[in-house]
């Protein structure tokens, strides 16, 4: 019942967001997240950054970044080039270690997680990259089946020919959701940019992730294809009730698809507000 209640809260993510219209630094990390008079338990926080910082060599990228993501929330991460948006996403997924602070991913502190535990956590998260990152010489279906490798490792998931029927079916269903079931046998390098990104989305959702992370998902697409991909991505994310973090340089996308907007500038988190409370002019200020 408790889970049902929290899930219900999650599905009304805009409500959750509207009452979390606060600068995150005002919320102590260990304190429950306030949601319109109700305190959201820590178990409903899917992702939390506590004073996260990253330094490459002697070059600090950002520091002291803290925020929490409630379950079902869609958060846009914006900022100019070089402010560390992609680096922050990689830190959140544990693909690179943070130099300072902690990342709590689905209730686990990633800085203490060993390899196996980290892989198990990543299997519960889906990633969509700017450059699609499909394996070009393999079929579309094989690429989508690779999305299951975290949960089902081993040689049978290396190629669609050897994959178990259940995995093939799951991959075909994911392709159907992105409208590319007819392209299952086609080589990934023979797709258009928009189609490639749709396949990348299918790969990200095939394992039914609890969090979806998208790093500028439409940056390499023309405006029309970019809008289509964003529309599809968020329709699927909302259908599955997953938490979403995405980066974008498109302020309209950030305001339209994000319940909340985080802004990175000058190596720090300068903005944390609900999308409803912002306009395009506010976000453009981050790029000055």
């Amino acid at each position, binding site marked *: 019942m408790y889970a049902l209640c929290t899930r219900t809260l999650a599905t009304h993510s805009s409500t959750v967001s509207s009452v979390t219209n606060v600068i995150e630094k005002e919320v102590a990390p260990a304190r429950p997240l306030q949601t319109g008079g109700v305190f959201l338990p820590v178990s409903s926080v899917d992702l939390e950054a506590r004073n996260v910082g990253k330094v490459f060599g002697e070059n600090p990228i950002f520091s002291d970044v803290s925020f929490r993501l409630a379950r079902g929330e869609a958060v846009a991460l914006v900022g100019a080039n070089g402010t560390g948006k992609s680096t922050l996403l990689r830190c959140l*997924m544990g*693909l690179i270690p943070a130099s300072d602070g902690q990342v709590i991913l689905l209730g686990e502190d990633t800085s203490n997680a060993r390899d196996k535990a*980290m*892989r*198990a*956590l*990543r*299997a*519960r*998260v*889906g*990633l969509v*990259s700017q*450059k699609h*990152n*499909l*394996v*070009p*010489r*393999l079929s579309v279906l*094989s690429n989508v089946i*690779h*999305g*299951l*490798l*975290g*949960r089902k*490792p*081993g*040689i049978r*998931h*290396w190629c669609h020919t050897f994959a178990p029927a259940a995995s093939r079916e799951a991959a075909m269903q994911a392709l159907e959701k992105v409208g590319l079931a007819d392209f299952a046998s086609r080589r990934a390098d023979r797709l258009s940019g928009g189609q490639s990104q749709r396949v*990348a989305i299918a*790969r990200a959702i095939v*394992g039914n992730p609890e969090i979806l*992370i998208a790093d500028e998902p439409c940056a390499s697409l023309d405006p029309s294809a970019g809008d289509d991909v964003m529309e599809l991505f968020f329709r699927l994310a909302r259908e599955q009730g997953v938490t979403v973090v995405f980066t974008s340089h498109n302020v309209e996308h950030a305001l339209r698809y994000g319940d909340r907007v985080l802004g990175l500038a000058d190596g720090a988190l300068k903005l944390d507000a609900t999308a409803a409370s912002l306009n395009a002019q506010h976000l453009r200020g981050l790029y000055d």
Partner: protein
Amino acid sequence: MTNSTILLRYERPSALSFIGYALGLALIAWCLAGAGFSVEKMVTAPPRFADFLDRAFPPNMDPKTLNRLGWKMIETLQIAVAGAVIGVILSIPVALLAARGLIAGVWVNQIVRNILSFIRAVPDIAWALVFVVAVGLGPFAGMLAIAIDTVGFCGRFFADDMEGTDKGPAESLTATGARKLDVVACATIPAAMPAFISTGLFALEKAVRSSTILGLVGAGGIGIELKVGFDLFDYPTAMTVILMIAVVVVALEQLSGWARNKIIGEQR
């Protein structure tokens, strides 16, 4: 703009550059001296070469000889293909250990790379001598020599090819929670496959060229026929062997080039 202004923009090479050029020329002269370079021999060589050609032509086209040499040539190709295929297959796991940032740590990478350098440093004919001692005279020793020579060559290049692949797909698969081995099998190796095929075909060409001379040390193949031909001053037969080797090597290079274009060209 005056000429003097243009001249000011010309940067004269430093004295150090001229010293460098002089040292380079001195090094080349020193190497030529060490190699016994002799103008006198260069002048007297063409008549001797013409004498050899006079005695070698026409090549020995006796059907019995051609039949014997043909079978030896087939044995040479068998040694080359078997050795190259085994070498290429063994090179993949070796390259996985040698490639930095894939599945093995830095120390393992360095140790495996050093072993590969050692293998390459020893010429194939020396490996053939070692294997003749180890497994006896015959084509098996030649095949082992080709295989290990191929591992030294392909192991290094496969590792470099894998290190040079686009890291994006591998990162995306790592993000799914996949193990390192799964990431390498599903993203890195497919991305490096065109380079693997190209390097593998070069390894086959190299193996065929090498296998033609392994017979000189008793490791099977047509090389022994060449040695016997020269030892007995049977230059027409030696010429037949040389022409057969040339025809086979050139034909294989053409075939390899065609296969490279066909397989890789279409898949790029």
